[in-house]
């Protein structure tokens, strides 16, 4: 956090000054570790094992915040007896289909709800459906059976306890390389600091998402925080430190293939052929919670898109929407480019030649387009791949044979345009424009508006049905200034929504109507223009308000700063303690009150109990804080929504030097793979030849640079602070490989080779994993060939294997070889790589998704790596499971 979010870290230092303990878990000792009370080195890619150990510690010793857990989570809920755990099936949950490498979730449901789950999670995976749950949980129908004594063998609490029973401190040590004493120190501190009177905060940076089990990493953290009563309370929570000024905004108002604004799903050709199908799939009739109004949100979006043309009679132009048929994510798209299926590509402030995994695929894809439009502040590697990329060096791209037509359009900077960013805590902050953009530099608002204007004018008069969506588009934004820049506030008004007849801005999404009389571009942002005032531009100084600072900017939804803050009060609505009071029930005035905007219906008393058949918001009880969940409860166990299991389970990274000590299943059995010759995966045990790539590498940021470097390698006063690509290695590895400080080394994977200067440092340590010494090396991923300071891009080392829930690639851990000296150059480089692939047995071979058992080295669950009885028994389990599937 000190490393990548230094200004946010001031609050950690503030807490430390007041006596808070800071624990930092990271593969390398960073600037955060330097200030931490406790630093825990960990093998990259093993966080679930570590956190699972904490879960076990809490449950085995019954250290959970019982009153919170019983009232606010689904710990008491009974799960169907069809459910089988990974403990029963050696690393797979029930319902696994090995042919589709995905689950049928029916056997994960609450008892009595067996028909509820998704049967076809392969489709869900291709459409990254997990992302929809960023604003709300998946559906649950009706009432669930509960045992509030938590003793029922099939209640979530007991299932959780069994699931994590083997995540002992010894197992944590074996998997993560974390010494037992260290683990115990963290577990004790976390529990001791989580009470009525104290809360513990879990902060992760979004490197957590860049794993083949990334979503489950975060779920494990959430399970701990729920068990300890740290969600919805001040000083608690699971906080994502996102890495880009408006990356939260670009998920809320997504430029993502599978989402529409406000986490509405992009229609799927098979699931949503009609408007009714689409609305129903969002709304889940009979569902409890705020998604009951989903139809209004959908109608308002279509009205915002197609204005007067969108009428109830034509289903608000629903037929104008493009339909998904599967995975249209950025990696699939890049492979489609290589295959010649994509004609044109826009890069809008993005530099995939450096910033995306598998740089070679990115560049070869761009070299096989008809045209490419790059909009950026600076000349970046993604605009010049045709003349100076690695592939030009190797002869794979020759400028005179590369047909891609490239347009470089300079962009306006953040001070040259007004607009809003949404920061990492959902807070929208408006920027005023300071100066006009120089030369041809223009905002993306200008570019998209005028591109639309020109395209529409070229189509004027067309009678083709396909052109109606463009011609009927509501595209009449006022423009201003010498460059005819569209008025950004007019766009924000549309996003907020208004009553069409009066143009009165809506104050809340509850004012959205499903009849077409209102429109709004993003329902969760409704209220940002309440009272006709740009609430995101509010700047009441922090010193003049309380610490929640509700009058600085505006947070969605409805300016709530801590989500689910009803949980900061006990079931009766009283603060858990005076010290941690935040939102509470004021019985005299009959309303919720507190320092924040209550994330609850303002006048619904804690004693409210819904009728048995109540749906929508009325179905949420007065002591159910998790109002966007179908059952009002926080989910320790997810009967649906997570495609790779109802509980987080440790799987090894897709590339790992060690066998999974916990289960026969080596890696996430539902991960998204692209089995192509140009996307090889290094072998991992039990596959042979893993020793060709014996080291673990991980990448992250330096304080002094920003992501792919386009905004820092080009800036003199940043470039000089970290002027060259380097690799950090432990002294022991330096000795093992003959690496010299500030000398050259190169790193090799089956995809690529990069060279870097060597930084030998005590801040990295080898770890002991299963009796072996495992070395990890660390690389910054900021470098490329453009700008003031250059270096080879670390992302060239990665391939593309994705988390199944959100289709984000595993780019925080891989295996590699590390060798002294510089890499081979020119065409020799290709031979060098080919030789590594040959030695690793990768010619045409991809590791199996379901771990093959051929050499019988699968560990037994008692922990002995070479236990003779293990494989047989487990094979039996597998067989029975496969019969099930």
């Amino acid at each position, binding site marked *: 956090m000190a490393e990548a979010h230094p200004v946010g870290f*001031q609050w950690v230092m503030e807490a430390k000054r007041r006596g808070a303990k800071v624990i930092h878990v990271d593969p390398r000792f960073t600037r955060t570790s*330097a200030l931490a009370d406790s630093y825990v080195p960990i093998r990259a890619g093993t966080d679930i094992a570590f956190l699972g150990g904490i879960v076990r510690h809490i449950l085995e010793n019954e250290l959970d915040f019982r009153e919170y857990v019983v009232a606010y989570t689904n710990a008491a809920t009974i799960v169907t007896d069809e459910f089988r755990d990974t403990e029963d099936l050696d690393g797979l949950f029930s319902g696994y289909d090995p042919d589709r490498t995905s689950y049928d979730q029916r056997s994960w449901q609450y008892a009595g709800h067996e028909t509820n789950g998704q049967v076809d999670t392969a489709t869900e995976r291709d459409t990254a459906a997990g992302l929809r749950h960023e604003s709300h949980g998946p559906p649950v129908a009706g009432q669930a059976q509960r045992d509030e004594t938590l003793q029922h063998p099939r209640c979530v609490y007991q299932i959780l306890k069994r699931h994590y029973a083997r995540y002992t401190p010894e197992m944590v040590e074996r998997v993560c390389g974390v010494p037992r004493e260290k683990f115990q120190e963290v577990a004790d501190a976390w529990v001791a600091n989580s009470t009525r009177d104290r809360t513990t905060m879990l902060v992760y940076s979004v490197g957590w998402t860049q794993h083949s089990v990334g979503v489950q990493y975060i779920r494990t953290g959430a399970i701990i925080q729920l068990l300890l009563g740290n969600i919805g309370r001040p000083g608690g929570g699971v906080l994502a430190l996102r890495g880009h000024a408006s990356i939260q905004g670009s998920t809320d108002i997504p430029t993502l293939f599978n989402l529409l604004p406000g986490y509405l799903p992009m229609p799927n050709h098979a699931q949503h052929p009609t408007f009714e199908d689409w609305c129903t799939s969002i709304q889940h009739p009979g569902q409890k919670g705020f998604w009951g109004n989903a139809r209004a949100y959908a109608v308002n979006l279509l009205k915002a898109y197609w204005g007067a043309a969108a009428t109830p009679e034509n289903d608000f132009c629903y037929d104008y929407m493009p339909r998904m048929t599967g995975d249209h994510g950025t990696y699939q798209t890049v492979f489609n480019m290589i295959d010649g299926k994509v004609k044109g590509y826009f890069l809008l402030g993005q530099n995939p030649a450096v910033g995306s995994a598998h740089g070679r695929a990115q560049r070869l894809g761009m070299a096989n387009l008809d045209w490419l439009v790059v909009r950026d502040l600076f000349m970046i590697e993604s605009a010049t791949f045709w003349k100076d990329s690695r592939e030009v060096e190797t002869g794979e791209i020759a400028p005179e044979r590369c047909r891609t037509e490239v347009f470089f359009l300079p962009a306006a900077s953040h001070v040259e345009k007004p607009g809003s960013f949404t920061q990492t805590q959902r807070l929208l902050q408006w920027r005023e424009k300071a100066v006009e953009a120089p030369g041809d530099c223009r905002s993306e608002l200008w570019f998209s508006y005028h591109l639309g204007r020109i395209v529409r004018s070229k189509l004027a008069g067309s009678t083709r049905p396909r052109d109606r969506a463009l011609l009927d588009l509501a595209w009449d934004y006022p423009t201003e200034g010498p460059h005819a820049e569209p008025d950004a506030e007019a766009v924000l008004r549309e996003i907020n929504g208004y009553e069409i007849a009066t143009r009165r801005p809506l104050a809340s999404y509850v004012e959205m109507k499903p009849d077409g009389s209102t429109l709004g571009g993003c329902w969760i942002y409704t209220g940002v223009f309440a009272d006709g005032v740009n609430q995101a531009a509010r700047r009441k100084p922090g010193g003049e308000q309380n610490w929640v600072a509700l009058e600085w900017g505006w947070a969605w939804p409805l300016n709530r700063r801590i989500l689910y803050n009803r949980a900061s009060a006990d079931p009766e609505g009283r603060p858990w303690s005076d010290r941690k009071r935040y939102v509470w029930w004021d019985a005299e005035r009959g309303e919720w009150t507190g320092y924040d905007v209550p994330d609850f219906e303002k006048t619904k008393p804690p004693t409210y109990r819904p009728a048995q058949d109540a749906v929508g918001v009325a179905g949420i009880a007065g002591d159910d804080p998790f109002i966007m969940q179908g059952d009002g409860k926080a989910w320790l166990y997810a009967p649906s929504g997570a495609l790779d299991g109802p509980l987080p389970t440790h799987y090894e990274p897709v590339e790992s030097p060690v066998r999974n000590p916990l289960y026969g299943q080596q890696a996430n059995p539902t991960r998204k793979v692209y089995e192509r010759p140009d996307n090889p995966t290094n072998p991992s045990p039990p596959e042979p030849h893993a020793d060709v790539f014996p080291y673990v590498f991980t990448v992250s940021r*330096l304080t002094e640079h920003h992501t792919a470097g386009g905004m820092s390698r080009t800036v003199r006063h940043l470039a000089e602070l970290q002027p060259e690509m*380097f690799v950090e290695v432990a002294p022991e590895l*330096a000795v093992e490989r003959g690496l010299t400080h500030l000398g050259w080394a190169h790193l090799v994977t089956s995809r690529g080779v990069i060279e870097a200067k060597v930084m030998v440092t005590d801040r990295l*340590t080898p770890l002991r994993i299963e009796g072996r010494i495992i070395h990890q090396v660390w690389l910054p991923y900021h470098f490329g060939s453009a700008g003031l300071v250059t270096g080879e891009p670390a992302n060239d080392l990665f391939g593309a294997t994705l988390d199944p829930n959100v289709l984000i690639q595993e780019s925080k851990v891989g295996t590699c070889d590390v060798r002294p000296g510089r890499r081979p150059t020119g065409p020799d480089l290709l031979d060098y790589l080919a030789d590594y692939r040959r030695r690793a047995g990768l010619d045409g071979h991809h590791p199996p998704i379901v771990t093959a058992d051929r050499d019988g080295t699968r560990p037994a669950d008692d922990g002995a790596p070479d236990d003779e009885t293990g494989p047989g028994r487990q094979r039996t389990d597998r067989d029975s499971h496969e019969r099930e599937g």
Partner: protein
Amino acid sequence: MAEPRRTTAPVNPAEQAGHVDPPPRMGFFTDTSVCIGCKACEVACKEWNLVPESGLDLLGMSYDNTGALTANSWRHVAFVEQARPAGWQSSPPMAGTPSGPPITRATAEAAAGTAVDQGTRPGVLPAPDPAPAGAMAAGSQFLGMPGTGLPGRDAERDGRTDLRWLMMSDVCKHCTHAACLDVCPTGSLFRTEFGTVVVQEDICNGCGYCVPACPYGVIDQRSGDGRAWKCTLCYDRIGAGRMPACAQACPTESIQYGELDELRDRARARVDRLHADGVPEARLYGHDPDDGVGGDGAFFLLLDEPEVYGLPPDPVVTTRDLPRMWRRAGLAALTMTAAVVAAFVGRPS
């Protein structure tokens, strides 16, 4: 011309320098125990003061690629990696890991010479020359501060259980007795009403006398320009009641700006607090009006000996003996100058 130095705390040096009713003396207290090494100070300083780039060299001194305070770097964050515990750590960072024995020149050379060929052809063989590996293993030249034998470095330690990473933002000390100012022949270096020491670039003629005079090696001439440059404590900003750029940017309040007396009180309280919290090595540097430079306007809380951070342990104003030497010569010069002035002023304008 200077008066003999007092050995006790002077009155406000601004008053001594002729400022009538000066504002309180202002300064920096840099608390390295909360520094996160982000270098925001370096950048904020350069942006405000329009300081040019100082070179694009990877120095290999941990995360320090600035190297030193120069004419083009008025803030410099030093990074020191040490096999010592930090007082706030509840357990040694690398405890229980299989970190090896200390690498020595001999073991490194042996390893470099015997690295196993992975059978990769074509390829680049492991370094055939063991010398660089040995040099690397020789210790402090590859980590932390350059040079060898610094206190705090322990090349012969067993294993690598303890680890702390010291970071310190260094800056001009704005000495009470400032030798740079004493030797400046042009009056370019002067004492401001805030008690700070500032180079006036419209006066500086680039003679460079100040450079060797500084006991800290701070002031420096800019190549291609010739004039001397250093921290001004943002004279323009503080004159307008604003904070110096570095202090305003500092995310963790490691750099604190304020009235020197108040900062000294604050610093003493902070040291007491750290001592109570189990950080006995915390100590102040440059805070003492009785030290060899009469105390610094920019002083520090350090967690190790000053040398570890590249600071002189006992700085002494280099012009300590000058007053005695110059008193006679000065008087003579002054007499002559006064005569010349009288000749001019006496004429009608």
